[in-house]
């Protein structure tokens, strides 16, 4: 009796030491060593510009040389990023075109500091090729998934407007990305307003884009936003981020094969999916432009008309034109 306990005790102690050792290893992973640098926290989403910068690694190195430690935080969608931005959990957020507009309407103090190139080809409404839905007007009476507060909402409203449908002619279901993926796959919804890399992935798996951004003049840019107070006092940081990020974007344009391989690995997607996504857009990132502001204003106007937001938003007064 006593002997078997001896064994048990040794077993437990060894196990606990192993457990704590692994946990310690985990702790080391979550804390970085360089602490003297100013930390800049950037929110991003899988497959976006910052995901590339993060995976490539050059961005963080350059920022470190300039005296900043960069921390990346991944989010599932833009509205979660806006929430984190409002609470100060992140300093910058890279998001689609819609989340900043809805955040502004709900009173969040944020400022646009940068805009990406347009990616209208990769954004659209997905339907299964076998679904028999061939035009926008076929959507009448169908179930369409989108994610509230993200660019998919604008895209959807814009597309319906073009087809002469109103929101009551279709059944709109707001789901987050993970839930929507499952619902669409299982056929619980007929269509899904979404963006790359999901669109590329599904287009190669028996789906097609019923409509894409360019058909309905929705450029679906990326934006870099920060809280107003942070943006005001950190112009230098904003400029550095945009500069280095754009260098990464140019690298992608020049080294597509390498970039595709790299992204496929980090996103755990096949190279064909990533290649489709990369090839149908031009990567770039720069300061805010009048065009980009106008595009955002269009979103705000349509949302206000449709009652999505309850407050008029004047995008112009929330923009920082860097020089």
């Amino acid at each position: 009796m006593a002997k078997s306990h001896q064994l048990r005790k040794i077993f437990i102690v060894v196990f606990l030491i192993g457990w704590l050792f692994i946990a310690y290893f985990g702790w080391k992973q979550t804390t970085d060593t360089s602490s003297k640098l100013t930390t800049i926290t950037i929110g991003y989403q899988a497959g976006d510009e910052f995901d590339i910068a993060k995976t490539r690694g050059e961005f963080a190195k350059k920022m470190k040389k300039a005296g900043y430690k960069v921390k990346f935080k991944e989010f599932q969608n833009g509205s979660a990023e806006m929430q984190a931005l409002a609470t100060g959990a992140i300093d910058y957020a890279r998001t689609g075109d819609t989340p900043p507009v809805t955040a502004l309407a709900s009173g969040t103090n944020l400022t646009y500091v940068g805009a990406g190139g347009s990616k209208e080809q990769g954004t659209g409404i997905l339907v299964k090729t076998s679904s028999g839905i061939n035009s926008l007007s076929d959507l009448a009476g169908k179930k369409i998934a989108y994610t509230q507060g993200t660019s998919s909402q604008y895209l959807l409203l814009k597309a319906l407007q073009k087809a002469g449908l109103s929101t009551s002619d279709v059944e709109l279901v707001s789901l987050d990305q993970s839930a929507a993926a499952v619902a669409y796959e299982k056929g619980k919804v007929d269509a899904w307003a979404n963006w790359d890399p999901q669109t590329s992935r599904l287009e190669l798996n028996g789906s097609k884009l019923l409509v894409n951004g360019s058909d309905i003049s929705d450029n679906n840019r990326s934006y870099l936003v920060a809280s107003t107070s942070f943006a005001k006092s950190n112009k230098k940081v904003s400029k550095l981020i945009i500069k280095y990020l754009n260098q990464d974007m140019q690298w992608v344009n020049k080294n597509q094969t390498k970039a595709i391989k790299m992204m496929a690995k980090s996103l755990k997607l096949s190279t064909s999916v990533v290649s489709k996504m990369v090839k149908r857009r031009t990567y770039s990132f720069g300061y805010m432009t009048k065009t980009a502001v106008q595009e955002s204003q269009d979103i705000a106007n349509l949302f206000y008309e449709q009652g999505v937001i309850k407050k008029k938003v004047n995008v112009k007064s929330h923009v920082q034109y860097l020089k």
Partner: protein
Amino acid sequence: MKKAKTNFWTKVYPWILPVAIIVFWQIAVQTKLINSQYVPAPSAIVAQAIKSWQAGTLQKNISISLYRATLGFIWGGGLGFFFGLFSGISALFRATFDSTIQMLRNIPHMALIPLIILVLGIDESAKIFLVAVGTFFPIYINTYHGISSVSEDLLEMGRSYDLTNWQLFTKIIFPGALPTILMGVRYSLGTMWVSLIVAETVSADSGIGYMSTNAQQFMNVKIIYLCIIIYALLGKLSDFMAKQLEIISLDWQKA
């Protein structure tokens, strides 16, 4: 000989069903009885595990999850023990805290998430806090219950046999409450993993929960299954260890 045989059977028998399920599962997928798009074969999941291990993501995410779980458990369990202990010993302490704690106990984890993000942001501390919340209550309740149900007779005996208050605690109150406390530990190890899954699906960029939601986003079913299996194994493992601890420290219960 006969005894050895029954011993062998009692050890092997409980594993027959799970092994049979796995074998059936493998065959069903291979013969296309089940659609491998939703239910990948066990062999495919193992292959995925090896692949993720070689890429370094599996061990990295497991270790990070383990770190969050452990720290959350130490905080939540430690505080739960402390509060439970004093609620069990002091009537004043109990009157002050118990009804508040009982009220907070019934709040679902999910309901706390917006508040936690608002107050603690999305750092490690938010995840660890959520785990701590999940482990606090089972340990609190069991410690409190264990301490307050220690036999009055034994306490009277201890007092009349000259024990100091500290000795009363170490010789009678604590060992008397230990079976109930250990039950709480086992239970809270369960809630520890549940809370961790919730915490890691909120906004994480590492950990098993993240691996799983990230895979869900891109419909990588193999990784989803792998994550579920890892959670199950970790849960079983921690329960097994708690059981060993019970066997050692509650040796006196069996005649």
